[in-house]
């Protein structure tokens, strides 16, 4: 190699042997090249939208998967004051909409909620920020009343609950059998709620019209949710010994009653009918459900229907009871075939069978037990009375809605008011669909398998049918949650960012992501790899 001696500025040899330096490349603001900008936009999981209480499931699942049970419970309770109850009796609209069911199997959200609820049975609710001057009366301590009271009391409003029965819970206690909702759980959950929040519970206080007017004078607001406590009875069934209205029979069994006789027919296909049938089985009765449509069309929860058959409940489907004849202390049921519905309703066809039973339970619907027609601007109504027969969680949602109205009139707000709360700059709530997720780094893992009491032992016991999850099972199941729409600080974007423009920072709420705008070139790898559909690319204008 020849080196020419050129006059002028000449560099000494060996100054730069290799293209390595101790200076930083940060001065090169490569971020100015981008025409797309990544943004963290948290979105809403479909489970949350499906839940009438809008529970932020994605977040509490994340906390639980990290074994932070206290944080998960605290978050869950902000949305649902009765998780141990709901974790048992809710049909889990959330789970039916879980994105994971398109991947392998939905997360067992109900059982995780039950785990958290049981964990919190003796953990007091946090004290309200301050006691308020307003006082609210809640009439009826069913799910609607309890929810309304809880959401108000958490904001410091003092609540008095009036309950006509000897113990609180309404349908939870007198309608839902103990094998679905153990009384110990119910008692402890309600006790904990009442004891740790400014709630006064007055049982054995049935409120008639004149008392209601008096209460309206004493309290700033009144929420009334008496429920639908009376069974519908068809007009052609004359009251006679051996014929029982379904709800009333459940109430009777819940308070220790045992109907006489050994064989029963149950008319109906809803949850009350199935609850009655399974309760009677547990009391040693032969039970036959008589339903006008098919088993598949029975509106009761499918697990309950399946378990009823396992427990030996018999089924006459597509049959109608067209006559009841008392005979030798028994009832002779005339069973007729069903003429298929042509749009004008189901009609009875030819008589096809007779069935001799000791008792007949009618569980074909329910109605209000009283008729307190009173309009008042400070009186709010809720629960099944307003909505018609619905689920526990829907009743609770109506209580929550009433609480929200009362709170806003008091100048307060719910702690987590999902409704109407939109991310900055967003015109509508954005729900994460399965297609939005990037699951290349997610391994298939089936849902936790549940342990049920065996059907034989269930026939003699009101013990809970399905076992609870233990700690490890709950953590693992919570870990299956995709946490749709929330940034968990998983770090996949950090891993893939070719410009090291993403930092993971530890904060009060766990790990979060910071994007270095000065150096992000807008390649979009972070958005394409974000498992939870949080990062998205916006055109940079």
């Amino acid at each position, binding site marked *: *190699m020849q080196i020419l001696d050129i006059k002028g*500025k000449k*560099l000494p040899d060996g*100054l*730069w*042997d*290799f*293209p*390595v*330096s*101790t*200076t*930083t*490349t940060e001065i*090169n603001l490569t971020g100015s090249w981008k025409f797309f900008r990544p943004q963290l936009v948290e979105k809403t999981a479909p489970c949350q939208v499906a839940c009438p209480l809008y529970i932020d499931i994605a977040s509490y699942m994340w906390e639980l998967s990290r074994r932070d049970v206290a944080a998960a419970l605290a978050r869950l309770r902000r949305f649902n004051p009765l998780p141990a109850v709901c974790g048992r009796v809710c049909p889990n609209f959330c789970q039916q909409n879980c994105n994971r069911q398109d991947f392998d199997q939905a997360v067992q959200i109900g059982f995780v909620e039950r785990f958290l609820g049981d964990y919190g049975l003796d953990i007091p609710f946090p004290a309200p920020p301050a006691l308020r001057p307003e006082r609210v009366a809640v009439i009826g301590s069913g799910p609607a009343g309890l929810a309304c009271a809880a959401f108000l009391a958490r904001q410091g409003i003092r609540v008095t609950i009036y309950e006509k029965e000897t113990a609180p819970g309404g349908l939870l206690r007198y309608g839902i059998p103990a094998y679905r909702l153990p009384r110990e759980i119910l008692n402890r959950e309600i006790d904990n709620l009442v004891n740790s929040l400014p709630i006064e519970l007055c049982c054995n206080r049935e409120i008639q019209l004149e008392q209601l007017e008096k209460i309206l004078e004493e309290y700033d607001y009144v929420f009334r949710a008496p429920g639908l406590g009376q069974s519908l009875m068809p007009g052609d069934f004359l009251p006679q010994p051996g014929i029982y209205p379904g709800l009333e029979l459940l109430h009777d069994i819940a308070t220790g009653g045992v109907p006489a006789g050994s064989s029963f027919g149950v008319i109906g296909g809803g949850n009350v009918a199935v609850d009655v049938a399974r309760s009677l089985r547990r009391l040693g009765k032969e039970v036959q459900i008589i339903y006008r449509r098919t088993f598949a069309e029975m509106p009761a929860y499918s697990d309950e229907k399946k378990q009823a058959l396992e427990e030996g409940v018999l089924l006459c489907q597509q049959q109608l009871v067209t006559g009841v004849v008392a005979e030798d202390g028994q009832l002779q049921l005339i069973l007729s075939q069903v003429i298929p519905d042509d749009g004008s309703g189901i009609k009875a066809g030819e008589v096809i069978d007779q069935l001799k039973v000791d008792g007949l339970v009618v569980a074909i619907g329910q109605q209000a037990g009283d008729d307190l027609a009173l309009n008042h601007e400070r009186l709010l109504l809720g629960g099944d009375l307003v909505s018609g027969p619905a689920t526990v969680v829907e009743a609770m949602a109506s209580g929550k809605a009433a609480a929200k109205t009362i709170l806003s009139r008091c100048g307060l707000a719910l702690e987590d008011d999902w409704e109407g709360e939109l991310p900055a700059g967003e015109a509508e709530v954005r729900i994460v669909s399965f297609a939005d997720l990037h699951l290349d780094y997610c391994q298939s893992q089936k849902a936790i398998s549940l342990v049920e009491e065996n059907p034989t032992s269930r026939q003699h016991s009101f013990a809970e049918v399905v076992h609870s999850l233990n700690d490890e099972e709950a953590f693992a199941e919570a870990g299956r949650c995709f946490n749709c729409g929330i940034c968990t600080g998983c770090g996949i974007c950090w891993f893939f960012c070719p410009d090291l423009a993403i930092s993971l920072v530890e904060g009060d709420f766990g790990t979060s992501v910071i994007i270095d705008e000065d150096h992000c070139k807008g390649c979009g790898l972070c958005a394409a790899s974000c498992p939870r559909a949080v990062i998205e690319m916006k055109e940079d204008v």
Partner: protein
Amino acid sequence: MQGELKPGEKSSREMMMGSDAVAHGVRLCRPQVISAYPITPQTHIIEILSEMVDRGEFPCQFIKVESEMSAIAACLGSVSAGSRSFTATSSQGLAMMHELLHWFSGARMPLVMVNANRALGAPWNIWCDQSDSLSQRDVGWLQIYCETAQEALDTIIQAYWLSERILLPVMVMIDGFILSHTMEPLMVPAAEEVDAFLPPYRPQYFLDTDDPRSFSAAAFPDGFYQLKKNIARTMEDAGDILADGCRQFAERFGRSYEHLEAYRCDDAEIIFCCSGALTGTVRVAVDRLRQDSHPVGLLKLRLFRPFPSRELARLVSGIKRLIVLNRAVSFGVGGTVSQEVRAALYEEDERPAVHDVIISLGGKEVFPEVIEQIAMQAEELSTSETIWI
């Protein structure tokens, strides 16, 4: 595959395919990272290596990637982090790596890459020629062409030895199918012997969060010029350093290699020049021609970058004709190797007539008879035009 070595033995005799030989050469060098993307006829090499890594024969991270571009990029990262690394490719795959080939040498990152020589489409063709590697002659990599599987195995060990000394990447060529897919008996050195020859890679600078540095960040014009001048200087010295490495290798393993090997060139009037496995064919032709008293010899071009100009000038001094057998062509000029040969001899006072023959492309078979016929027609060969057969 690998036989048992008796205590004290320095190598074992094996029968294996060229791809196996390459894989064993790589194994003996203990790279810490291998990243490669499969392409015929290179696939066997990385398949065998991935199985070796899977069996834990040497501690190594095998990074699966979705393209050759990613394979070489992954190696850039791993070498920057101070890990001895390996990749292999062929044909279109090498072409795809082109941009990062420049980057590798510019960054002064040592790497050994095996390229199984194969034609570039279109039309689609999987057979041997040297268009792929010879069209990467200006990227700042060293290029070594192997004649046998044994040479391929040995060259890999030498290539690491050299690359990590001079901080430039080395490309080792084997003929696709002709070497990669055929078997030959060869000696596999003992691991301890290779360890003694090849020290571990201990770079002065590597990615270290405790001692942060910028690698290949922007260089302003003067600095850039200086860095490129350094590469030129290193290339200039690389031939001698490799020759020293080959001497040490020969002392330890008993096999010697030259940048430009003269075969039966004494008193030759006509000398063929070629590289790769074609050399073996030409050796046979030369032997036959010599039997018939034709003064013919062979120059085997092993080292293409840096080009051994001095050795070439010395070896062909006084020779009448030099017939360059090309397996690659630069359209509009002629055979790629012929250009290099002519350029190397331009300043020589006594230079032979150089005949530019395109002997084979895309796997076109070359038989000894063809070489013999070319030698017999040497008087008629053009010196101004490229010769196609």
